[in-house]
């Protein structure tokens, strides 16, 4: 309600990446994240190559670096875990800056952090260049069951409404002096969520009734015209995972610890 139609993570721009069909971009992004996720811990060169590649894609898609960096906080808890790894891991130990740490843990932590950051960046680039309805349509074209994508579509559609309702509820509670700090002060919060559930459910019932009244038969009409995907789109999109694969190869497979296996 009130807010714009675009998604918070979408960056409105005009670029090659923005124009590509969603399902092609999903496949390309997934391929890149698979390559990133299976890079062993010690492949620092490969990680650097991926970083340069993703930065280039961001630049070409006109996604500001500040936007990406701000959104990368979602992986922060796992960076913290990566920070602890050198201290809790087992195995031979080495001296770093006068502190003895487990060597495997050190590499494990670095690898974990690199994969988490690069993977999240790749996902962010996909979201930043594709609107959510397009993404869901793309999933459908990739044979994800329509039931799931339709539930997701309604979820995204009503998310803003329900989040706004939570926000209003929270503000009303705060205005009346409710500021929970301990477990036993949770009850009003839980009761509020209960009310929210009933309201959401009843909204769902109303939406459903309104749709039935307008002739809904269980199939949503396609608002976007389906066009066959030109082969050039695939070629353009797959350039990125292609380069990523090349980076992996050139950096050497090393000891082939699959999925960043130990070491």
């Amino acid at each position, binding site marked *: 309600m009130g807010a714009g139609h675009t998604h918070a*993570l979408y960056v409105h721009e005009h670029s090659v990446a923005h124009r590509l069909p969603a399902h092609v971009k999903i496949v390309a992004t997934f391929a890149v994240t*698979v390559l*990133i*996720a299976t890079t062993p811990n010690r492949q620092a060169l490969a990680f650097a190559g991926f970083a340069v590649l993703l930065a280039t894609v961001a630049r070409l898609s006109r996604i500001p670096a500040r936007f990406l960096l701000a*959104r990368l906080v*979602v992986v922060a808890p796992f960076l913290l875990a990566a920070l602890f790894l050198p201290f809790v*891991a087992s*195995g031979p*130990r080495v001296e770093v800056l006068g502190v003895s740490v487990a060597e495997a*843990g050190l*590499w*494990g*932590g670095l690898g*974990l952090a690199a*994969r*988490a950051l690069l*993977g*999240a960046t790749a*996902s962010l680039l*996909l*979201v930043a260049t594709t609107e959510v309805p397009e*993404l869901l349509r793309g999933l459908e074209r990739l044979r994800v*069951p329509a*039931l*799931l994508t*339709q*539930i997701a579509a*309604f*979820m*995204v559609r*009503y*998310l803003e409404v*329900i*989040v706004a309702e*939570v926000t209003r509820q*929270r503000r009303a509670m705060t205005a009346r002096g409710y500021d*929970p*700090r*301990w477990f036993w002060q*949770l*009850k009003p919060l*839980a*009761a509020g*969520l*209960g009310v*929210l*559930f*009933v309201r*959401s*459910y009843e909204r*769902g*019932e109303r*939406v*459903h009734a309104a749709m*039935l009244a307008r002739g*809904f038969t269980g199939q949503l009409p396609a608002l976007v015209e389906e066009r066959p995907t030109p082969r050039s789109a695939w070629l353009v999109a797959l350039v990125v995972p292609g380069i990523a694969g090349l980076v992996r190869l050139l950096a050497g497979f090393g000891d082939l610890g*699959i*999925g*960043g296996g*130990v070491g």
Partner: protein
Amino acid sequence: MHAPDGFLTAPTAIATGVLSAGAIAGAVRASRPELDDDRIPLAGVTAAFVFAAQMVNFPVAAGTTGHLLGGALAAVLLGPSLGLVVVAVVVLVQALAFADGGLTALGYNLFNMAVVTSLGGWAVFRGARRLLPASPTGVTLAAAVAGFASVLLSAISFSLMWLFGASAAVPFDRVFAAMVGVHAIIGVGEALITAGVVAAVLAVRPDLVRGADGVDPGAERARLPRTRFVVIGLLTALVVAVGVAQFAVDEPDGLERVAQDLGFEEAGREHLLANSVFSDYATTGVASEPVSLALAGIAGTLLTLAVGTGLLLAIRERRGRDPARADQTAT
């Protein structure tokens, strides 16, 4: 717990992906009869509710907050299959549209946050309902137990995956102890919120709580069988303590290890209680290690319980004595 890309090994990601896809496909099929009626908007709006509920931070203790996983709640409200579908959609959208959780990590994220929480939560919920009276209070308490268990099960599942697919050499028992320890606390918050939401919905629209079948909402509120509940709760706590204590290690933990390596362990004086009977999580003078660990676990639980009860009693007494304060809480 939205794990990023490459957190676990590729074989683990693929195996959990297959498991999750199978579970979701089964749940979709099982919830078809309900959704056949074209009630997709309802499921979608409920998914938006779960998403919004996950955004509400609740206080764990002064300063720290946790947030709802919602799997057990969705299962109790919508039934296990539709609950699983709804939470799976939430996790899917978070990964795809919000870049929260890696795309290649979807297999294990879906398994830990949707499959384990909703199916495991539902199983515990049914078990607890059998022991509790078929009244709104009984359903609410069963929801609390299910909420707590779902978080703990999720943490256990996560550490088991680490056992099979760790991306770094951290021993399983350390990960297990840390994950289960932290989530035992977060689980209490999940339990309270789950129970509170279920109680609120039961009061307004009992027909919307799928797990409340066989409960007569019109019936007068049966009195809470307090002794029975306390006994059940205590037994659960003891079983968990005995089980978890087995994983407690006498190796130095991370911090102790750092201390050793830096050489300031010597400087640190021995702990004041080092000679007490339960030092290093094992009772001295008991030969068998499992038995000794179990004893330490039981003793720890009883101690915590006693301290907690005492604290609560103390607070209640102070509130009772201070009329101004009592007034405040009453309004």
